[in-house]
């Protein structure tokens, strides 16, 4: 099962998006585990993450996280601003799965 982890400053607003993504996944019958956490505690979830999505407001973490986690086989991407604002779970999920 694919594991997606979303990070932002405190993991609050990403957790709202996670809910929408989970709903979208359920509707499409996609087996996937999605969670949100703060950027500072992502380390704890690195081993069980296939796709790491970064909230646009902490987009500056991209380079650092890419250099740290891409060698470990984790796909890293920053969530599109508009999709984030509209809490478009369907689109973000589709983008994450196509990475």
């Amino acid at each position: 099962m694919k594991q997606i982890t979303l990070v932002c400053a405190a993991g609050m607003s990403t957790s709202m998006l996670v809910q929408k993504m989970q709903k979208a996944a359920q509707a499409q019958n996609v087996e996937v585990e999605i969670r949100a956490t703060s950027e500072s505690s992502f380390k704890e979830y690195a081993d069980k993450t296939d796709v790491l999505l970064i909230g646009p407001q902490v987009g500056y973490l991209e380079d650092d996280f890419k250099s740290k986690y891409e060698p470990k086989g984790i796909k890293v991407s920053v969530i599109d601003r508009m999709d984030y604002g509209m809490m478009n779970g369907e689109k973000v999920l589709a983008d994450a799965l196509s990475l």
Partner: protein
Amino acid sequence: MANEKKLSHKLQRYAGKIQQNRYMSAISNGLMSTLPFLIVGAFSTLFSALAWEPYQNFIAPVKGIIGLASTMTTGVIALYAVFFIAYRLAQAFDKDPLVPAATALLSFLILTPVETFDKVRALPLQWLGAQGLFVAMFVGLIASRLYIWIVDRNWTIKMPEGVPPTVVKTFSGLIPAILVAVLFVVISGLFMQTSFVTVHEFIYTYLQVPLEGLGGSLGAMIIALIIMQALWMFGIHGAIVTLAIVKPIWMSLDLANLEAFQAGAPLPNIIGLAFWYIFANYAPMLGFALLLVFLAKSKQLRTIGKLGLPGTFFSIHEPLNFGIPVVLNPLLAVPFIASPIVCAVLGYFATTIGLLPAPIGIYPAFGTPIFALGFIEGSWRLAAAQLVLIPVCMLIYYPFFRILDRQALEREREAQENSEQEGTAGINAGAVTS
């Protein structure tokens, strides 16, 4: 647009450098880790110092016992801070953090003089609470960094093969811990020769007091708010970047208030983390979201408003910031930057003229709802003030909201005309409502 993107990217990099700086984030995350203890202390303070006479009479026999938990948490918060700051720094350097953290605690205690009062030997609590917080930050960073430096030099005792790994681990911490301890003993000894007698006295007088004076002013809060909001305009989480710098100062101001409140003394500070949270963090975006939900004619804006409104009660603003968007939208720059500043200024003056009490300085945990926070910070008047600021912010946003709504309506009408020309019925609102 291309230029804005470029500037945005550049700012992102700088913001990242500040927020991700290992030392800054060790302080920030270390202070964050003291949260459970601060909350325990806050409850204890609330229950023991609640200013209601019948209640005070009722608890009088056990007041000291109820307050015990706060004395041993907020009262000695520097002990927790030095440990966690050192811990976080060692973690950032990918080192086993426990021994460096304990070594930092030892170093802090070495700098704190044992005093004798009437034959009782005691550590002065004065330096273990809010007044010792800056020493805790420095010692946490220096002791931990030095420990790591020594470990990296491999100045450790090598054990022969066959010795259990746990034993090896214990001994590997021996030399770094001894060297760090010796350094702090020397520093402590040197200060005893000066008129300050202790490092605490020196740092408090020459660093903490001036920095608190600087950071505790209304001007500093306004500057911090401008930077915060301007960064948000470029899509960067302005609060965590700005707080990486000002949080240590604001938090120590809050803790001084909390100590005073516990002791029944007048609250020394107005500005602090709690003040920022109460006044600048809810009303602006909550007011804006209400305008969107109830007064917007544009379907798109109303939809985003409904999406964003629930979050604004808990100071979560990302759906609005990115959805409308506020980010890179020059039209909204004025109200977005001005409204929290207006709120902070109003709150400040209402406090100085005695209309509102100063916040008691309980750490404002992220996600605490508006109104409830005002109560937690000591008064129904603060809770009410939080609500009064909402219409104020609606007024500030209103003229800009009108223009925004008109623009959105025009776009929607154009989209409709286009789709009618193509012979497809209705507007394609799918992207908005899904």
